[in-house]
């Protein structure tokens, strides 16, 4: 049995320490990802907290045939989506869903970050697929599982996202970037 599975088993028996150790390696990446999905820093913090609480509460339902990160990201995406929907419902027409959530967590000198462009030109799902592929090194199968999509959809949209970002990266002559892919 791997160390991760031992920690999962201990967490299932109610060990907070084991769970904390289990998620320690994923926490930073998860928070980084959530900052791209939430509308502000506070929401990203709430989403991270909710994700870890839900993961601990329902760890009994975790199937070890899947990667733990796949399961964790699935919960994170749901929590981020729920928070965003709550924000929209609460603020109504005052909610600015198109606001750039990455702006607050990037230094001024690093504002030409490609993920900001990705956020602008890709749909949420394609953005997530690209993130899971290129940052989290997930397989197409795992990404499809996280997004609850088919492997074919995932492959096609990874390719589309890739082409769009390559064009964005190479395009120096003022791209409007209004076209959404996926």
């Amino acid at each position, binding site marked *: 049995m791997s160390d991760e599975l031992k920690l999962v088993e201990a967490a299932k028996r109610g060990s907070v320490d084991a769970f904390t150790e289990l998620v320690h390696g994923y926490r930073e990446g998860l928070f980084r990802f959530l900052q791209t999905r939430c509308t502000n820093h506070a929401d990203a913090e709430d989403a991270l*907290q909710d994700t870890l*609480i839900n993961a*601990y*509460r329902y760890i009994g339902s975790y199937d070890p045939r899947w990667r733990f990160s796949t399961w964790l990201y699935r919960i994170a995406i749901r929590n981020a989506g729920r928070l965003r929907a709550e924000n929209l419902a609460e603020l109504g027409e005052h909610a600015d869903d198109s606001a750039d959530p990455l702006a607050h967590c990037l230094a001024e000198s690093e504002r030409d970050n490609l*993920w900001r462009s990705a956020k602008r030109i890709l749909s949420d799902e394609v953005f997530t697929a690209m993130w899971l592929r290129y940052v989290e090194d997930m397989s197409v199968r795992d990404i499809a599982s996280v997004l609850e999509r088919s492997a074919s959809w995932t492959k096609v949209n990874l390719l589309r996202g890739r082409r769009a970002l*390559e064009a964005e990266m190479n395009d120096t002559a003022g791209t409007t970037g209004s076209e959404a892919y996926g």
Partner: protein
Amino acid sequence: MDKLASKLREDANRIDAQVSAQLDNRIRASLNAIEPESALQRKAARRPVSFWLASSLTGITAALAIIAVLNMTDSNEPEPMPRTVVGNTAPAVGIPVLDLDIEAATLTSPLARELEDLQADLKKAEELVRGDVRIDL
């Protein structure tokens, strides 16, 4: 690793993802306040298989009983027409109420015929009113 992949990874690492000590404490406190739902609890919350079997059988039995009762009471004789007293619902003041005892019509003829009859009735009523009031409608 190609240029795009390395750029994406590099740019992702530039995003500040420092979990503050305050958030860390908050998460820790929340985790200590809850317990994972055990497999036993989940099983207990679920209905046993016998429950679904019993409810399915009850449903099927009830459906069969209703079909049987309907078949037993069903006969070829036409049901008697309900008798409707029209005058009871009319207002008592001003308009003389005719105590009509009407039987509900059985729509055996096509709807077109019914429509023609109604139009004829309307025309007759119109002529009657014209005669009484002596004005053109």
